């Protein structure tokens, strides 16, 4: 029995030393014991929608909110023109991620396009930066308006 107790102490020592290696110590504290995603922190946010917000963040809230804005603007079949991420960054929009049309469809069930997507001519609204570094929805009413936007966006490479 003494030998087994000695081996148990060796096991405990090995675990202690292992998690004292700086990298593993950091991993344990910042990842494994990450308070932000522990059960005790999120136990009151267990609905499906709350869990989506917790994972996808601010951008997801904006995209979901667009559904209400579409109703307000009376856009029945919205086709959203997505600006390139680099364009948004250049206009100092912080904390907002421009997703791909496929991800946008996954999150909202609505259609979005990029400047080089098939069917871009059907775009009837666009996400643009406002003066406060936030995003705002604008309606596209004419082909001329769309062409102007496309000519601006085409200057930026799309990040895939």
């Amino acid at each position, binding site marked *: 029995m003494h030998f087994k107790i000695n081996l148990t102490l060796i*096991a405990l020592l090995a675990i202690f030393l292992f998690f004292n290696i700086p990298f593993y110590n950091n*991993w344990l504290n910042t990842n494994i014991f990450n308070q932000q995603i522990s059960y005790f922190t999120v136990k009151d946010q267990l609905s499906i929608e709350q869990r989506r917000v917790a994972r996808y963040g601010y951008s997801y809230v904006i995209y979901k909110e667009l559904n209400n804005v579409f109703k307000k603007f009376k856009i029945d079949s919205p086709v959203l023109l997505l600006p390139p991420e680099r364009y948004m960054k250049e206009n100092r929009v912080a904390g907002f991620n421009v997703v791909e049309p496929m991800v946008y469809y996954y999150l909202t069930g609505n259609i979005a396009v990029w400047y080089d997507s098939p069917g871009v001519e059907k775009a009837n609204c666009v996400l643009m930066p406002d003066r406060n570094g936030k995003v705002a929805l604008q309606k596209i009413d004419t082909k001329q308006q769309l062409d102007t936007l496309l000519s601006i966006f085409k200057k930026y490479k799309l990040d*895939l």
Partner: protein
Amino acid sequence: MNLTGLIFLLFAHYFAGRGVIRLFRIDVDAIALLCLSMMCGVTIHSFVPCIMDLIHVPLTASNMYIWLGGTSLLLSIPLLIKIKETKLPTLRLPQLYEVPFLLIFIGLGVISVWRCWYFPPTPRDVLTGVELIAEYAVKEKTMINSAFSVDVRLNSAANNIFKSPFITSLQVIYKLLVLPFGQLWLSILFLSFTTWFYTILRQVVHPLLAGMLLLIYFAVPDLYAYTYIILYDYSNMVFFFAGYYFMMKYMSSGKVNELLWVSFLFGLATYIRSETLVLAAFSIAIFAIYMYRDKVSIKQIVIRGGIFMAGPLVFNFILSNILIKYLVPYKFKLGDLLNPNMTDIGLLFDKFHELVFGLMFSPKGQAVYAHFYIFFLVVFVADLILNRKISRSAGMTLWGVLIVFITLGVLSFLIPSHTVINSAKRGLFKLIPLATLYMAQTGLLQKLSGYLQNRENRVKEAATAQPAANTKQPKKKK
């Protein structure tokens, strides 16, 4: 969460997987049997929604119960036929010194399952492909759905809609029967594989050393992260390792049923990630070399090699020519993805350089793999210096490590979209369980293990001898 659905699936996976293992007549201990049954059951069931969709059966919860139940019953026939031969397993309680490690592993397991359950699917690779298809398959009851009507970026870097329907199908099953985010199938694979892997390590080295090795394996940050983030690489690693491990077992047994089982496991790995076909082709070289050294005739090597490759080839055919062909309404062109400058061999060396110094031994690599490769190299070099010879089993495992490394470099050269920093990064997961097993098999750890085992046995013998001596003493007095 629908708990009834989860319990149904657990039983369905177990019986389907157990039936398949019985079909191959694979002889493993009780824990390994349970784990392998779950692993195989999960993967085999991923074919069910595909078959349902191909014959136009709507993907509804009730249909899914019927089809999964029916498939499980069908696959468990080999088990039911010989039900009388089924023995109750004899389970052994862990030793006291295993408990600290087991508590850590249980803790990490619980955290992983919690994160898998709590968070929705996240990786861009699944949101722009298989998860998107699965989400709309549940809404529209078919895998050919409106997800394909958006800009799917054909022939872009990722080509995510052309990935194996393995994840799509499992997501459809779990979304319909368990919870809206699906995903819990990954926890089943993770828990089953890790438990099985621990039993393997315990067979090779003393449980104390097995615990230490599994801790090093567990603490690979990205590998751990992919136990709760759905993507192909973890599942692929599970079946590649299983195939390679049983290949090594076959090398010593030479039983045909084990060879068929190896072929089947490599087949499942290929179905999950088609690149495994290249890995299987490289593995066959090791297979052939060892058989040649064992004086197996060339004709036999060719026949056995053919059986070995049959599984990966058949599953690759099913994947490319049936599943992707009929379940994705676009044509896949591999030619567009191949490196147009194949004669530039310098680029191949650049890829290997990037793999080693840009990934494995770089700050980025440290964040991904922690110090795993350093542990591996220290044991490897120390064993070479102190032991100076590599056992047959350790040699074979080491070849496996090398095959994964070489194949990933070659794939990054052949297919530019198979980037070192993303695809090869996760592909290197396949190397980790093999490298862990190699460390256990080294002469260095074998000697240490032997020493611990001998000491433990001596203590045990002394403990049993003492009471016996005590009981004899009163007799003498008489």
